[in-house]
């Protein structure tokens, strides 16, 4: 009897583990409401996605030690995109989901220093060490980008561009999917390429 109970508990344990692993990464659908969340930014201020309703919002998963993030920041490519659309009323939220002890997990003080060094032009950098919001959005890589329209619907999810490399020399010959999605949506058009396969380092959950 005891042995049977133990076997049953073991089986239940496996079943729960399997379910937990499968359920871990969400995948919000294009055209559906982007899931709301509140995270604390690197200045200690809470930021809720719903607060930006009426504006386009870009969510950018980041990790300053990832070579793919460096490709787009050390070249100035990411900041140029942030500034270009900031002047057009787009809100840019950088999100870091590195767990404690993992690559890219820094204190708010260190984050402020890093973002200042890169002259990052995000409206806020949000810290998600529990990985809750990363899992909610199914963020897999750094960078991994999501665009939310003024109605709060998800209109783009995927890579920053179409050249999966760590080499900044490829940027001039790349098509930037985020720029494309923002430009089309602001012009009142459908986003012609709403999804792509993200490339980069894994998010360090």
């Amino acid at each position, binding site marked *: 009897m005891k042995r049977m109970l133990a076997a049953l508990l073991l089986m239940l344990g496996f079943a729960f583990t399997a379910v937990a*692993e499968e359920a*871990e*990464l969400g995948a919000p659908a294009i055209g559906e409401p982007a899931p709301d969340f509140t995270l604390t930014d690197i200045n200690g201020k809470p930021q809720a996605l719903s607060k930006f309703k009426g504006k386009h919002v870009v969510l950018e998963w980041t990790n300053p*030690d*990832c*070579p*793919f993030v460096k490709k787009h920041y050390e070249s100035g490519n990411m900041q140029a995109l942030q500034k270009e659309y900031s002047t057009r009323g787009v809100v840019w939220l950088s999100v870091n989901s590195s767990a404690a002890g*993992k*690559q890219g997990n820094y204190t708010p003080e260190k984050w402020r220093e890093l973002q200042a060094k890169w002259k990052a032009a995000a409206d806020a950098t949000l810290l998600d060490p529990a*990985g809750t919001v990363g*899992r909610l959005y199914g963020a*897999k*890589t750094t960078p991994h980008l999501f665009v939310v329209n003024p109605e709060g619907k998800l209109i783009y999810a995927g890579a920053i561009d179409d050249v*999966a*490399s*760590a*080499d900044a020399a490829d940027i001039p010959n790349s098509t930037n999917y985020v720029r494309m999605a923002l430009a089309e949506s602001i012009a009142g058009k459908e986003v012609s390429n709403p999804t792509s396969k*993200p*490339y*980069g*380092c*894994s*998010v*360090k*959950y």
Partner: protein
Amino acid sequence: MSKRGRVDLAPFVLGALGLLAAAPAADRPWVSSAPVRDANAEVTLAAPSAPVAHPGGELRVAVRFKIDPGWHIYGEDPGDAGMPTRVDWALPEGVTSGPLEWPEPREFQEGPITTKGYEKEVAPEAVLRVASTAPAGEPLVVKATVRWLSCKEVCVPGKAELVLNIPTEKGETT
């Protein structure tokens, strides 16, 4: 007497055959490029050293990766994260390359993220075809720029410029 002679010869013949048969593929003569070490891996271009019928022939060229313990690289489809390995060939006129063929990858689990790739050693191969209009009897100089990503919790991009000289002979059958 003659029977005894045959018996005496047999061990030598069998021994020689045995040596040939026992030689593992890796020990057969191949021509290789100089190895390049970057991003926790060593990469070489290699091809069988038997002269290639030229023009009109084809040959297999391997991109050999020796990957440091604990690290892995990716093939064509890295799965949830990572970067596909990219090989840009620079080939003599009249030589074309087929797609790089990878063995079945294994899965790597990092929390909720599943990637697909290779550890220890992997040697994807491509078929190169030499056009019948290519000049005959000259060595083939095959160049490749290889870009890959090595990961072990963190990731490091690697790049290697490789040059392989392949001996050729004039094609007799074409």
